[in-house]
């Protein structure tokens, strides 16, 4: 939790946020929570035969941000994203979208918000088996009453966007897993949503296709700049795609931060165990491991502070001299010794960076 402030440095408005959100399964869960002052420990929940799937979660997702919720199966991440979209009614807490209280929205308002503001991609694609690709992608427009020509034109644009042109008359059963998920993506984008929920979208795909789809997502986000809430159990995937990552365990969020912060400064052993096998050179930046600049720094070769270590590692080791680190404006803010880079590459810097 202590990392929230550091992560919130981005100067963008909050798009979706929740505060002290709970989802407790079992009879009379709401009364139980209220009786316990809105907080309940694991032991208390167990004694009452209740299951706390989401416990006291507070997050604030900024506009255009890719926010990843990472956790193992059973950690409550799927329940959390369903609470955020109100597919599941939260037991307690606050939930706002663009400052509007989502929990107070009527059924009609909720339908309207979902039709125009939200899109969702599902782990097992959730394509309608009786419709072809074009009709699947056009479906959200169909139920809004958009007339045929307009919705099919829009659907075709989306199909082209995900590189499925030529397959629009196929049925889902005739497509590969990766292609099906492209349809799922196209469908969720057809209504131009502002908030894009992706619930383990690539987990059902095999590793090569998964990497390809991740690259595709990065490309799409480069063009679309949506507010993304992305669920995954794969830490590498999280690091590859995230602006910020929230790590969940047993229904609670135990750390929120940029990938670099999680790797260099894990809040608990649990987080540390996820990060230990990560290729740190690919995550850490020059700014993350630099030391204060020495007197002669101005004459040294320069790297951007946001540059990943991987991008200049071989240069600095070959040169065998320190590099200066500059910020976005070109001012020198520190320097890096080859030794520090070698430590990152060999994994020795672990703990030292903290």
């Amino acid at each position, binding site marked *: 939790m202590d990392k929230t402030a550091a992560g919130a440095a981005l100067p963008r408005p909050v798009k979706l946020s929740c505060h002290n959100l709970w989802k407790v399964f079992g009879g009379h869960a709401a009364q139980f929570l209220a009786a316990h002052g809105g907080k309940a420990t694991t032991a208390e929940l167990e004694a009452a035969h209740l299951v706390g799937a989401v416990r006291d979660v507070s997050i604030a997702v900024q506009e255009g941000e890719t926010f990843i919720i990472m956790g193992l199966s059973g950690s409550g991440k799927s329940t959390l994203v369903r609470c955020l979209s109100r*597919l599941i009614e939260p037991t307690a807490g606050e939930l706002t979208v663009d400052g509007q209280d989502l929990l107070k929205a009527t059924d009609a308002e909720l339908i309207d918000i*979902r039709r*125009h503001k939200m899109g969702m991609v599902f*782990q097992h694609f*959730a394509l*309608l088996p*009786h419709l072809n690709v*074009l009709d699947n992608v056009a479906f*959200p427009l169909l*139920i809004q009453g958009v007339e045929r020509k307009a919705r099919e034109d829009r659907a075709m644009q989306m199909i082209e966007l995900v590189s499925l042109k030529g397959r629009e008359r196929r049925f889902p059963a005739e497509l590969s897993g990766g292609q099906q998920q492209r349809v799922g993506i196209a469908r969720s984008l057809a209504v131009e949503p502002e908030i894009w929920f992706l619930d383990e979208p690539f987990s059902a795909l095999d590793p090569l296709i998964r990497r390809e789809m991740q690259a595709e997502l990065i490309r799409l986000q480069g063009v679309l700049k949506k507010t993304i809430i992305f669920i995954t159990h794969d830490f590498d995937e999280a690091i590859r795609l995230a602006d910020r990552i929230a790590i969940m365990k047993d229904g609670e969020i135990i750390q929120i931060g940029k990938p670099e912060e999680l790797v260099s400064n894990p809040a608990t052993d649990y987080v540390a165990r996820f990060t230990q096998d990560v290729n740190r050179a690919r995550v850490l930046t020059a700014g993350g491991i630099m030391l204060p600049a020495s007197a002669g720094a101005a004459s040294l070769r320069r790297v951007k502070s946001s540059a990943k270590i991987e991008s200049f590692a071989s240069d600095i080791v070959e040169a065998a001299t320190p590099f200066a680190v500059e910020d976005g404006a070109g001012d020198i803010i520190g320097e890096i010794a080859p030794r520090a880079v070698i430590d990152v590459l060999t994994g020795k810097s672990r703990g030292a960076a903290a």
Partner: protein
Amino acid sequence: MTDVTASPAPGIAKADDPGRYVVMIAVAAALAVFLLRDRMPALTTYPDGAIIPFKEWVGAVMNWLKVNLTWFTRSIAAVMDVPLRFAINLLAKGFKFGYGPQAVVLPRLSWLGVVGVMGWLGYLYGGWRLALLCGGGFFALALFGVWDNAMLTLALIVICVPFCVVTGLLVGIWSYRSPGFNGYVITPALDLMQTIPTFAYLIPMLLLYGASPVSALLATGLFATPPMVRATLLGLNKVPPEIRDFADMAGCTRRQKLWRVLLPSAKPSLMIGVNQVIMLALNMVIISSMIGAGGLGYDVLLALRALKIGQAMEAGLAIVIIAIVLDRLSQAMARREPAPAAEGSTWARHGNIIIAVGLLALTTLFAFAVPALASFPKSLTVTTAPLWKAGVDWLTLNLFDTIETVRVFVLLNFLNPLRAAFEGLPWLGVLLVIVALGWRLGGWRLALLVGLLGFFAASSGLWVPAMQTLYLAGAATLVACLLGIPLGIWASRSNRVEAVVVPVIDTLQTIPMFCIIIPVVMLFRVGDVTALIATVAFAIVPAVRYTNHGLRQVPVQLIEAGQVAGCTRWQLFRHVQLPVAMPEIMLGINQAILLALSMIIICAMVGTRDLGQEIFKALAKADSGRGIVAGLVIAFIGIIADRLITAWVARRKRRGGLA
């Protein structure tokens, strides 16, 4: 119930023990009641004085309904009569306007047109092979000279099936949306409707609507709708949760979610429901011929009553042809890939319908000029009746002694002693045992349920016929399992055997109950042996199917684990495959019992002495109280067996899950 091979943890075993003792005590008590039958006969034979007059009550209610609701039933009948009359005229009789010599007659659809359309449908959904089956099958109906009656039967089905499908769909949606209502009202009602024997449906219909095609239609509708409700419920519940979530996220309203997302996604299940509705409707339309449905069933009925085996066989074959054609066609329709989005000209979208309607119109128009198109020329029809008769005569001449020996042997050494044993079962003892079993398998609720249902059978004064039914159904189930389970095991171990066995039992299942009796009567005449054989032929299907299926779905890893542990083939079967497949096999036995019960009742037509005969007599006298109560007793026997076995399977599975 004395299964110790599972050997659970000591704690669980202890908890199990009292249950086991309760069942043993109940058996001992039942034995005591039996031994003391001379001292306390009231405990063995239910005392006449204590009989609760259910029959009179039901009879009174039905009579009240008849007197006070006739205006209502008459108006329903009048409304239903319109589409039915139209379909009958269109397919079988032709439209007649006016009276006397001025009457204008519009002809019915030409037989050639109907055959052509069936062939075209077959071609559309299943290629040339299905086209040949559908077209050829219907052509055979014309060729054998049974076209008129076949079209009467078909007209009833054509009207009944859409009605059942729509009703079933709506009720299914309703019970999907209110699970409480479903649990307390719909599911029990469906259970009852599917276990009440077919004959029992006919009696109230006969009483309220008279002997007419409309009452046959309503009886058929009641009988054939439950599977559609179940299929709808199952299909909707089976839609993946992600698809539900998607519907919500796309912003569907409640109605859009149901009609645009859930129902289309459930289409495969729904189509299975439609197929079952068609098959049950055909089955029931045949049986309804007893209350005025007419058609092929009536032919069979008349021929059977007069023991004209040739005619009965011919009409029976025609029914089987219709059954197989409708079954294969509806299955092919269910399996077909969804059609591409409609696009382009009218022709591309509606071409098939235009072809079909055109075919019918053209042939019917030409029929004005060519009478051979209006009705199949008599001179060309082939009758197989003499052939069958000759066959039976030959059998009677040459094999009579052998068959008679077999029949008498089975009767004297197997059926008669069994019947005597069942007739002597003390009602209180049986009740005690089923209550104890119910308690052990499913707790107090189940014990109470089976106890009450059993007590109804005893207190209605129908205990002895109920036991006679149980004896025949039990014997038939036993034989069906003794033959069917080994056959299923064999089929599960050899793909070649399966390739032969599965199509045979598929076809066997398609044949309406009524028709199975015919060839058996030919050989064994009337009596218990005939009933037994016909029932076995019907009840063997689930025994084979579930055994085969259960054994084939044993996980490969388990078998490999057994092989690695060094099991011999027999050990592998005995200790791995059989225990894992057991719940599935028990479900097969459960189905076999239910099918046997329904078939036994039909066999009342060939002279059994049991509840079926009660209903049959009640039908003849239109005695609604007697018929309905007897029907309920049969339904309750079925429900008791079903609940006990289902509870046992659930318990067994739960334990398997825990172990």
